[in-house]
């Protein structure tokens, strides 16, 4: 009998087991694997193994027209697709020198923050589930689903909104959308005490999350950690504020930070970001009605669109961290080269290997989820 997930019988007697953590393992986020060598309960060596979700996006995008790629890009990170769309569109706009209308920029912020909110709700649930508490997962996903309803209403799709195209967005908000958005935000607000009671002030959870997978600020910088994971080490850096794009410089929001850089700090940073996202969304609700104008800059016929030769490097703060797109055009109707730097490609590979080594098997899943690793973004 041989199987992927185990084989110990034929091994010489040893205290060391080798375990494939994933790809089919509930403690792994998505379809990803971590091969670990355990001594008793302790992990002595770890090796990340990706590629289970590899689709060859960068190659596919070189084969498709600029416009056709808008359908492709949100698939790169499934739990948080909106930043991918926006980043790709922004890159093409930079190459073409397209000026995106104000209203479209606000709508993009709306989409991005909704997506961040949804992604964080999902992550909390996942993180809690790795510690054996499933109720936050059930709640979080159900509450996220209300946000997906909003996505559906706004963009026509629950998960893959395909809402952005180079030049702007595809549709304006439907009637009364802002009211419903506001209601949903109120509802989420009203749910937050429940989450606090259940998760964020749960002694057992705090005890488990604290000191799990700690990263110091020096390590974080050394390993290229970004996003909430970097902010959990005390560095208040956010692409939205420090390398602003869209209309983030007109919005008020704080950057939550924590010092210790462990799973609990990361969770708290994300909780803070959730609140900030709600705050940003409320500002959007206030400001959007006053911003008129078109939602889309005119673009040429997409079937015959040669984007001027050049390169663009676009950075966006996704819910996982710094998302960058490097897009090169040779003046043709298809991208010449697209390189996607998913934030998880740092913390789901090298950082995860580092953090897992030396910890105990029960914390592996928790560390991975608290880092908010997104395997499809690593595999692309």
């Amino acid at each position, binding site marked *: *009998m041989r199987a992927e997930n185990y084989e110990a019988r034929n091994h010489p007697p040893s205290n060391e087991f080798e375990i494939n953590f994933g790809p089919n393992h509930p403690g792994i986020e998505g379809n990803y694997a971590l091969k670990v060598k355990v001594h008793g309960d302790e992990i002595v060596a770890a090796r990340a193994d990706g590629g289970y979700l590899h689709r060859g996006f960068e*190659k596919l995008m070189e084969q498709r027209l600029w416009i056709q790629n808008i359908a492709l890009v949100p698939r790169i990170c499934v739990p948080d697709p909106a930043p991918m769309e926006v980043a790709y569109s922004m890159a093409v706009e930079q190459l073409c020198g397209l000026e995106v209308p104000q209203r479209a920029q606000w709508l993009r912020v709306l989409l991005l923050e909704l997506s961040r909110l949804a992604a964080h709700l999902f992550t909390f649930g996942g993180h809690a589930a790795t510690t054996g508490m499933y109720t936050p997962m*059930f709640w979080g996903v159900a509450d996220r689903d209300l946000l997906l309803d909003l996505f559906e209403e706004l963009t026509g799709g629950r998960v893959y909104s395909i809402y952005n195209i180079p030049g702007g967005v595809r549709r304006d908000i439907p009637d009364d959308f802002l009211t419903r958005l506001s209601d949903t935000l109120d509802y989420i607000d009203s749910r937050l005490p429940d989450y606090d009671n259940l998760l964020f002030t749960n002694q057992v959870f705090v005890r488990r999350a604290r000191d799990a997978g700690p990263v110091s600020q020096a390590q974080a910088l050394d390993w290229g950690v970004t996003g909430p994971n970097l902010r959990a080490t005390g560095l208040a850096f956010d692409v939205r504020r420090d390398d602003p794009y869209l209309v983030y410089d007109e919005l008020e929001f704080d950057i939550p930070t924590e010092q210790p850089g462990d799973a609990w700090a990361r969770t708290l940073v994300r909780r803070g970001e959730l609140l900030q996202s709600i705050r940003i969304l409320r500002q959007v609700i206030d400001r959007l009605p006053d911003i008129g104008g078109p939602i889309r800059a005119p673009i040429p016929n997409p079937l015959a669109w040669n984007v001027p030769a050049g390169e663009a490097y676009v950075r966006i703060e996704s819910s996982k961290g710094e998302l960058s797109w490097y897009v090169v055009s040779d003046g043709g109707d298809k991208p010449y080269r697209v390189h996607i730097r998913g934030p998880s490609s740092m913390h789901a590979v090298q950082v995860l290997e580092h953090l897992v080594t030396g910890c105990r098997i029960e914390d592996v899943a928790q560390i991975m989820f608290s880092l908010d690793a997104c395997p499809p973004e690593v595999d692309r």
Partner: protein
Amino acid sequence: MTDTEQFPVRVEQPDRNGGNIFSRVFDELTAFCRSRSLFILHYCTGCGAIELPPAMTSRFDMERLGISPMVSPRQADILLITGYVSVKTLKRVMLTYEQMGSPKYVIGICSCTVNGGMYWQSYATAKKLNDYMPVDLYIAGCMPRPEAVITGLRQLMDKIAAGEANGWEDYYRRYDYYLGHQQRLFGETWQTPTDVIAEARHYGLFGPETLGDHTRLLEQHQAPLEALEMQLGLGAPDEVKA
């Protein structure tokens, strides 16, 4: 290879028309219970998996249909292929599928399991799931909403209760066909730890198409199974570089 002596497989041929009334009632009861209790393997092969958490959790609550996620292939009844399977994943999916206990059901959701979906040009993903394993049900969408998934599962339940979801038998009956496609993709030396041919004999599902050119090829290349060496690559970096 599964040593069939070591892993005895109980064979019971359901005989819907014959048998005494008790065995018929018992068969009906089993079929009914099978349809009312479905364990889905918790394996997110692709992006469609993002719609499974909503389907399983409070908003759409699959458990009211008796469907719950399970962790290991041994425990599961349903292999849910959620969208594209990369070639690398497909190997694991095949191993998983062969390890699942019969009767087992495969559901292909999303476009990608049918004809390659939007990744049809990609060198990394498999295109037609039913080339590699029998599929009982497809759910259309990219990705299907939780409601669609639930509707599909309800249809599967009806089919199981009616004794129609027998795709897994096809895998034994036409093993050569499926193995051929696997070999085409994974290379001639592809082999799995399960002795499907022996199992087919045990289930009484050995048919004229169980064996063929591809199984002969398998026998030629078949290596005695050894423990999977773990490729940590931590010990010998020089070797790796070369």
